[in-house]
């Protein structure tokens, strides 16, 4: 009885959400086909990327279990991997994640000031998300853009040669896109 109640209290949507569309399932098949027969576990990293992009920008345990079932591996094999690689988020993140590089070469070109400026402007520290759920600030290690420092990753792309003005423009751009989508 108690158990039943509990199950009902979980919104049905959450389970529905963790399911790839036909289109995405075809993508998964295509990825799996890159590797030899029986080595479908090799598809784990690319499939986790797809899952994270599809299911809200992070990997919940439901998502990870779902990926395990798709690839016919144990859930623990997915958890092990998801916790190892820094690009997988294991907690919800903001709609826009500012991943600012803080390693030596970027430090030499003033990334500390940029990080501080974002902190002030958005009122969040590294690792935090704004109350409206729009922005997360993350400090990350070298992203291979050292010659174009300071820089950050935003979604699939890099934003380079950052200045305070550019940061303002990026924030405005994100707010605008978010407003248009609502």
């Amino acid at each position: 009885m108690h158990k039943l109640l509990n199950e009902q209290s979980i919104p049905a949507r959450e389970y529905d959400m963790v399911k790839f569309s036909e289109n995405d399932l075809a993508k998964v098949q295509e990825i799996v086909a890159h590797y030899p027969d029986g080595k479908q576990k090799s598809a784990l990293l690319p499939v986790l990327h797809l899952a994270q992009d599809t299911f809200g920008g992070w990997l919940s345990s439901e998502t990870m279990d779902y990926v395990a079932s798709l690839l016919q591996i144990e859930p623990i094999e997915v958890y092990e991997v998801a916790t190892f690689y820094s690009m997988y988020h294991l907690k919800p993140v903001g709609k826009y994640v500012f991943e600012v590089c803080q390693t030596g070469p970027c430090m030499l070109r003033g990334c500390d000031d940029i990080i501080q400026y974002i902190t002030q402007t958005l009122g969040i520290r590294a690792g935090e998300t704004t109350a409206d759920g729009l922005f997360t600030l993350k400090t990350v290690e070298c992203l291979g853009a050292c010659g174009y420092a300071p820089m950050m990753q935003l979604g699939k792309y890099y934003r380079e040669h950052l200045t305070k003005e550019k940061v303002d423009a990026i924030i405005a751009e994100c707010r605008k896109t978010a407003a248009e989508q609502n």
Partner: protein
Amino acid sequence: MGMKLLLEKAHVEGIRHFEAYRREGGYRSVEKALKEMSPEAIVEEVKKSGLRGRGGAGFPAGMKWSFIAKPEGVPRHLVCNADESEPGTFKDRYLMEFLPHLLLEGLIVSSYALGSHATYIYIRGEYAWIATILETAIAEAKANGMLGNNILGSGFDCEIYVHRGAGAYICGEETALIESLEGKRGNPRIKPPFPAIQGVWMRPTVVNNVETLAAVVPIINMGGEEYAKIGVGKSTGTKLISACGNINKPGVYEIDMTISVEEFIYSDEYCGGIANGKRLKACIPGGSSVPILPANLLLKTAKGETRFMNYESLSDGGFASGSMMGSGGFIVLDEDQCIVKNTYTLARFYRHESCGQCSPCREGTGWMEKILWRLENGEGKETDIDLLWDIQRRIEGNTICPLGDAAAWPVAAAIRHFRDEFEWHVREPQEAKRRNYGLAHYADPIHVPVAG
């Protein structure tokens, strides 16, 4: 102008696509190799070229290829290492972004030489848009008969797949990369067995850097002997250098390895001198893992000879007074930079990236980060400097993979050459918070030009 074998066409309109690339003479090496040469003959040419691995270790590529095991009935694989995560290094990205077909061309010829019918490009996960560029190029090459079955009627079949990593420097180490390609955590394997015997899915595997594999194209086009005439000594061919830090023109440069370090830094063709009219303090010439050198030892060796941008000259003097070519990530520090802080950010990087399998690396990187933070923030003690030295010494050589050494060397070199700056942080913590130590005596022994 220096000689360009790789980047010459980088800015030709439309070169990212098959049509323009082919029109500019692309894929000639595939025609030559598949129609006129045996796989063994290609390995021979690469041996003759003297090409050294461009990923960091500088191991002769032809020799590595000749080690691959060929057991009956077991597929072999070529894997291209595009993980590029060594701080200061961004050359592979440039090559793939602007000349994706050059990499594919090199991969096809190399796959033929090694007998790989399924070749993988393991690219760092953050280079997401470059993975798309490569996938587009692969589709174009396939549509034009350069990939797939029976390429150019030669009977050779080959597919190339892009595999994105997910944020882990350690996956650049070849056995960790292989684990990651298998869908596991990037924990390096104990060697032997070497990948050439048992690599991905226990099959014979060769892992080479992006630039190494792209260099196979000019080698096949011009012949190994001609290629070997470019450069000097065991530094043959051209090298991509990604230059960053406090210089006027950060970017990726293709150099002929006969130019001096001084010319590379001050010439307008390359770095264009130190930014903001400042003076050169120090430089990490080959990616964050290699020893940092003060200006005087960078421009001239301890013997007082001019230092050149090649493997032998950069390592002249060993770790006592030299450094390494490494991955070609050239990081320049001006007179206002703090060595302790720079070393701290690198120590933090290695702590973050240690896979945690070996205790000297896992614990040691954590300790080094903590102590450097203390020193940088005015809470250090005189004994901390010796403690740091001691920790780095205990990591080096005591771990499964070279990340441990890579974490130890920058700390060792910083103390070796800049000990007085560390001591100043301990003695004058308040002062150290307010200002930087400056050039001190590092630039004294020789004349260091002021940018202009």
